[in-house]
């Protein structure tokens, strides 16, 4: 690579980071409702947490079922720090609270990692599950520290103000969180570019070979594990600042499962994947949980569909189109996508209606401007009919989409001819 292209590549990369920073800073200007800010804060926490999880699974090949441990412990320590500030035992800016979370996560990572990273695969997954259960159970036993089922709450407003922010409002917390999200994302990205980060990929791919080029697979895993625990702790610290309240739920298996879903649905193979997953799932959580009690069911179905049809997640789905885009043929896919997508949408909507209809306690279901009576045979058969129709049309148009896909990704016709001549 010569100097000019190197500078260009660097400029392109810093461009992405500048856009990221700008979006983070502009979001609360564009959407300034209390609800929007509260969603953004949740997203910020989820992004750091999901990225930290991907250091383990996507980059290091370690499937963890207990990542909430580092998130939760970081959060609890952070809340205790807030309490100490309230009791005037210490006095510092709460901007440093995520650092306390990170340090806690790092220490917990060092301790657990010292024995859990010996092996990857099933052994690692089982140890993570065991530790997850153990810490979750302990959180209900050691009530002095964890506050039992009631949890521990603090108050973030006792510290000195920072740049005129007193942290009474969520917007102040958002800007602080945005700073930490940006910093954490940047450092986690840079980590992937270092020898330790690259060897994590190598060990994920083939731990045996890594040992024969001079690296201890265990030590490589341990370093990733500690770094991952640290960033999970930062996310926990942000959580403590945002909610001022932690319970056992923040370090139990439900939270561990949720971060796995976020990273997986977003796409493990891409750095940006967990960010997408965190945003999508946080939005879904907010939007759907207000409308339906079935939203966890939908989340489960979405996870299943992702595993089955988009194994590389949303990010993988987006990146799949790179080749067609480079060849200037992305537009040829629009119509086939529509032809398959619309019937699929019809099918999905009908299934949702059927599910909601069988679940609802009301005599009528209001959905997309329609009023559907629960006891009407016509409604049920109509929905079943439309669902079948949607399914049939989706199936029927799928081969056309596949053909269009292949045509869009084919190498240039003249280039192919050159090969034969």
């Amino acid at each position: 690579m010569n100097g000019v292209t190197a500078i260009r590549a660097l400029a392109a990369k810093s461009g992405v980071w500048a856009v990221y920073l700008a979006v983070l800073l502009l979001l609360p200007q564009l959407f300034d409702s209390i609800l929007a800010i509260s969603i953004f804060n949740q997203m910020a926490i989820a992004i750091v947490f999901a990225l930290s999880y991907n250091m383990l699974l996507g980059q290091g090949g370690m499937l963890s079922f207990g990542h909430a441990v580092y998130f939760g412990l970081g959060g609890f320590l952070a809340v205790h720090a807030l309490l100490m500030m309230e009791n005037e035992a210490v006095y510092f800016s709460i901007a440093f609270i995520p650092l306390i979370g990170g340090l806690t996560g790092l220490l917990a990572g060092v301790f657990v990692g010292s024995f859990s990273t010996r092996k990857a695969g099933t052994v690692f997954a089982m140890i993570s599950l065991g530790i997850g259960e153990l810490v979750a159970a302990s959180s209900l036993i050691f009530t002095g520290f964890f506050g039992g089922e009631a949890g521990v709450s603090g108050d973030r407003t006792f510290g000195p103000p920072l740049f005129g922010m007193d942290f009474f409002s969520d917007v102040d917390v958002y800007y602080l969180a945005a700073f930490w999200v940006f910093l954490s994302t940047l450092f986690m990205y840079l980590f992937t570019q270092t020898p330790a980060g690259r060897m994590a990929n190598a060990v994920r791919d083939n731990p045996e070979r890594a040992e024969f080029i001079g690296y201890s697979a265990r030590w490589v895993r341990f370093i990733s594990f500690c770094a991952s625990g640290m960033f999970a702790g930062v996310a926990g610290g942000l959580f403590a600042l945002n909610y001022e309240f932690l319970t056992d739920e923040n370090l139990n298996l439900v939270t561990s499962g949720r971060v796995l879903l976020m990273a997986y649905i977003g796409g493990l193979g891409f750095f940006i994947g967990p960010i997408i997953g965190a945003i999508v799932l946080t939005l879904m959580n907010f939007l759907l949980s207000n409308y339906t009690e079935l939203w966890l069911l939908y989340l489960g179905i979405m996870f299943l569909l992702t595993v089955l049809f988009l194994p590389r997640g949303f990010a993988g789905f987006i990146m799949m189109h790179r080749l067609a885009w480079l060849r200037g043929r992305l537009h040829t896919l629009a119509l086939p996508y529509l032809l398959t997508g619309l019937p699929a949408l019809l099918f999905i909507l009908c299934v949702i209606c059927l599910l909601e209809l069988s679940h609802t306690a009301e005599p009528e279901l209001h959905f997309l401007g329609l009023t559907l009576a629960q006891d009407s045979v016509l409604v049920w058969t109509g929905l079943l009919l439309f669902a079948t129709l949607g399914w049939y049309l989706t199936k029927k148009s799928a081969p056309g989409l596949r053909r269009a896909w292949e045509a869009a990704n084919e190498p240039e016709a003249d280039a192919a001819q050159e090969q034969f001549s």
Partner: protein
Amino acid sequence: MSILSMRNLRKNFGATEIIRGVDLDIESGEIHAIIGPNGAGKSTLFHLISGKYSPTAGSIRFNDRQIENLSPFRINRLGIARSFQVTNIFPRLSVFENIRCALLWSSGYGYSFRHLLNRQRALNEETREVLEKIGLAGKAQIPAGEIAYSEQRALELGMAIAGGAELILLDEPVAGMSHSEADNAVRLIRRITEGKTLVMVEHDMNIVFDLADRISVLVYGKVIACGAPAEIRANAQVQEAYLGEAQAHA
């Protein structure tokens, strides 16, 4: 003077003794081939030297250092690198990353998380040089799992030599290749292992007698003969145990 010496080396798997008292000296700078019928323990011997297995008894000395109980990465750091019979690479990393990873430890980066790899000019230059040598410069950015088999074998070789190890162990480097591919591979091996000590396991007798300075014949876990190609060819015991059989098969 010998760079690697094995004394009374033994390896059992349960009740089965695979290596049954091997005494072998590898001279510095030589190309040493280990031949023998299937199941003679050739690969096991490589696994013992490179630390994948630890011996049941006996000793292995490398440059006057006991290495028989060290783990693979420590042995590698001392200067022994190896390739594998079955292609053993990092399939999801690019060809370039595969070679660069193989260079990292010997270039002194260790487990650093302070250096950004793309900024390490000397390291990247060296990676490109290795890629040129093994003829994969044109495939640098392709995931290693997606290149052709013979190219993966070349990559495997490249990873073995990249770290600048003194002693290189090649386990059937041309297995599964066509004649022309094998010829290319032999030329490649000659070129990239110049000035190094090379121990190889190989089934193709043409290649063995062409490349090797000395040959050891391993039969049922024992070295039954060791010497220059001409001596081995003339050895009656070897004829009976192995070469005659191999020729009968051919």
